[in-house]
């Protein structure tokens, strides 16, 4: 359909390559059609057979991120199992063809090239980390395959002009604090904070967050009374906390990475400073959080979540209970993300009614898919336009308070009880 435009974009060398690829694919179709019916990898768009649809992927199952890739793989496995139990895709069963790239970019590239070029898988799904997805996405694009990735939210990926890439997490960093800003905007006038202090760990994510929040909150009329950045491995926060206390802010925004957020709270406690509102990025989801700051002191603290097992999105509760039954542990964020990637791809295929990659991509670009991380839609570059969840500790539990369709409670604590 838009092959002509693509050829123009590709330039002379690219055009030659595209012609070669076209010839190769054409040959493959002919060979595939001539091949015997026992040849499982032969589909290449032939949508009529009863053979299983093969979905290829390469995951970092060994190597440094193996511990996170394992639940990611399990998310995919669980998705396929559930899909097949419900009749599969286009009335056909689905099977996964999984290779291991050991968290190596070059292996990942050759794996996907092999899966698409040699094994002729019908569809592909994405791998883990921005690093690997950044390397693999151009391969899928070159072979004109839809590429739904469960991770890889770095800005760089969405600046490459990919046309068939879709990010299966709810939002990139740009949209991370949106629900929090909305909560403040909608707060009753007498409970809305007037002043804000930023205490930010030095990290690309958190510093970008501070910039975004500063702009948004100043637009809402909040005055910035203090702003400090600290090295991510700092551990003595008494003096830092004292400077925040001196500025007397109503709201403290702490772009924290890990233990730094806990040490900051402990220093606030020692100083007897308890802000009315506290928003922290990554620390409150740390399993040791409540123990380390005192279990009674979590009440009212706000944070964001990319995924919550409690979020009331359709299908989420079933996913959580089914996954736990299958693997004996609740799903991690990575497991949820790969399950979501599967949901997105399946929705596109069913809506397109075929394995035509162009039709799948076109439908995904112009529609919204209901997933366990909420309704997802994408801009032209494949960046998702969903919502990160806003969560708050209430009675010792992280409750989702926004967006409304995911909320697990209607209650919002605007003024945190003092420590």
């Amino acid at each position: 359909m838009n092959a002509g435009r693509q050829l123009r974009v590709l330039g002379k060398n690219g055009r030659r390559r595209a012609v070669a690829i076209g010839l190769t694919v054409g040959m493959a179709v002919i060979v595939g059609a001539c091949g015997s019916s026992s040849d499982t990898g032969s589909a290449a768009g032939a949508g009529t057979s009863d053979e299983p649809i093969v979905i290829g992927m390469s995951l970092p199952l060994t190597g440094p991120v193996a511990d996170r890739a394992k639940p990611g793989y399990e998310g995919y496995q669980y998705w396929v199992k559930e899909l097949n139990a419900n009749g599969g895709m286009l009335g056909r069963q689905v099977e996964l063809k999984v290779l291991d790239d050991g968290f190596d970019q070059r292996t990942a590239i050759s794996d996907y090239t092999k899966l698409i070029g040699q094994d002729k898988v019908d569809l592909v799904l994405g791998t883990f980390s921005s690093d690997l997805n950044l390397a693999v996405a151009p391969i899928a694009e070159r072979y004109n395959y839809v590429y739904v990735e469960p991770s890889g939210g770095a800005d760089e990926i969405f600046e490459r002009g990919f046309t068939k890439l879709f990010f299966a997490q709810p939002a990139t960093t740009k949209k991370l604090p949106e629900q929090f800003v909305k909560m403040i905007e909608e707060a009753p006038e007498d409970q809305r904070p007037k002043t804000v202090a930023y205490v930010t760990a030095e990290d690309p994510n958190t510093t970008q967050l501070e910039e975004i929040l500063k702009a948004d909150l100043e637009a809402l009329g909040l005055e910035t009374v203090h702003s400090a950045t600290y090295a991510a491995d700092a551990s003595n926060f008494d003096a830092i906390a004292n400077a925040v206390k001196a500025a007397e802010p109503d709201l403290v925004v702490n772009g924290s990475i890990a233990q730094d957020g806990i040490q900051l709270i402990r220093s606030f406690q020692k100083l007897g400073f308890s802000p009315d509102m506290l928003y922290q990025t990554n620390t409150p989801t740390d399993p040791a959080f409540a123990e380390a700051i005192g279990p009674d002191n979590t009440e009212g603290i706000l944070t964001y979540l990319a995924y919550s097992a409690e979020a009331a999105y359709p299908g989420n509760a079933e996913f959580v209970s089914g996954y736990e039954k299958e693997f004996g542990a609740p799903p991690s964020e990575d497991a949820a993300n790969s399950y979501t990637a599967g949901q997105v791809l399946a929705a596109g295929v069913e809506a397109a009614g075929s394995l035509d990659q162009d039709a799948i991509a076109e439908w995904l670009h112009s529609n919204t898919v209901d997933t366990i991380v909420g309704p997802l839609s994408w801009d032209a570059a494949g960046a998702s336009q969903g919502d990160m969840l806003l969560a708050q500790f209430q009675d010792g539990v992280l409750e989702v308070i926004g967006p409304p369709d995911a909320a697990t409670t209607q209650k919002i604590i605007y003024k945190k009880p003092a420590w």
Partner: protein
Amino acid sequence: MTLLLQTLIFGVLTGGVYALMASGFTLIFGVMRVINLSHGALLILAAYLTWWVWDRTAIDPLLLGTGVSVVMYGVGWLLYKTVIARVQRIDPELTLVASFAFAIAAAGVIALVAGTEARAATPSYFNTSFHVGELVVPRAQLYACVGALAILGGLYALLHGTALGRGIRACATSRTGAELVGIDVERSMSQMFAIGCATTGFGGAALAVLYQFVPDSHYVWIGRILCVVVLGGLGSFAGAALGAAVLGIGEAMTAAYWDSRWITAVPYMLIIVILILRPQGILGARLRAGSGAP
């Protein structure tokens, strides 16, 4: 004025904690010329022991430090007998490598046994303070600071007021000479090393109350300890206390009056300045090559 006083209080208290952590290290270096890089790992081990007992019995963690010190004395004695003494006979400088290897192995074993989750002991006073007018004095830090002074004083008294201490100092000056006058060098050395390690018992207990820790936290602490003793002068107790205070106050001042993102650079900046102006450390005696243990 309040800000300055408050900043000084934070700095001195943090310095007190640093001095506590560094006391055993500087003792072992001062008399044995052994740079014990496993000191950080021993602190973390003590912190885990403290946390474990506190979690099950709710006994005050700083009091537990006394009991843990006894355990750490035993650990130190074993470490000396099985590792340090043996490699020291081959080449005294090998103790640097051997103790670092022990630290890495210890962190691995701790991770296997206790897991890699961050821990922290939180007795009732962990996040409370004494209030003096407008000034705030965090309680746990104050206790740790007092403990540090007591331990440094105790070690000084031990070295200068007891037969064991005199024997040890004799060994440090001349091993052969000490043997000639009838001192059991091997026994004195193992005692000294074990006492140095015993100080990590209280240090680890304070660490468990003041900070979160994971098995790998020892890298951070051995880095700070080295900084403290290099600043103050290797092997000098008063130097360790002074170096720790300089570091603590430097960090607090940086956060209060300059920019908090420079805090982690403070130790290195101080070391560079000290190495240029006074290479032996603030209170350190000049070391000549070949001095100390043969």
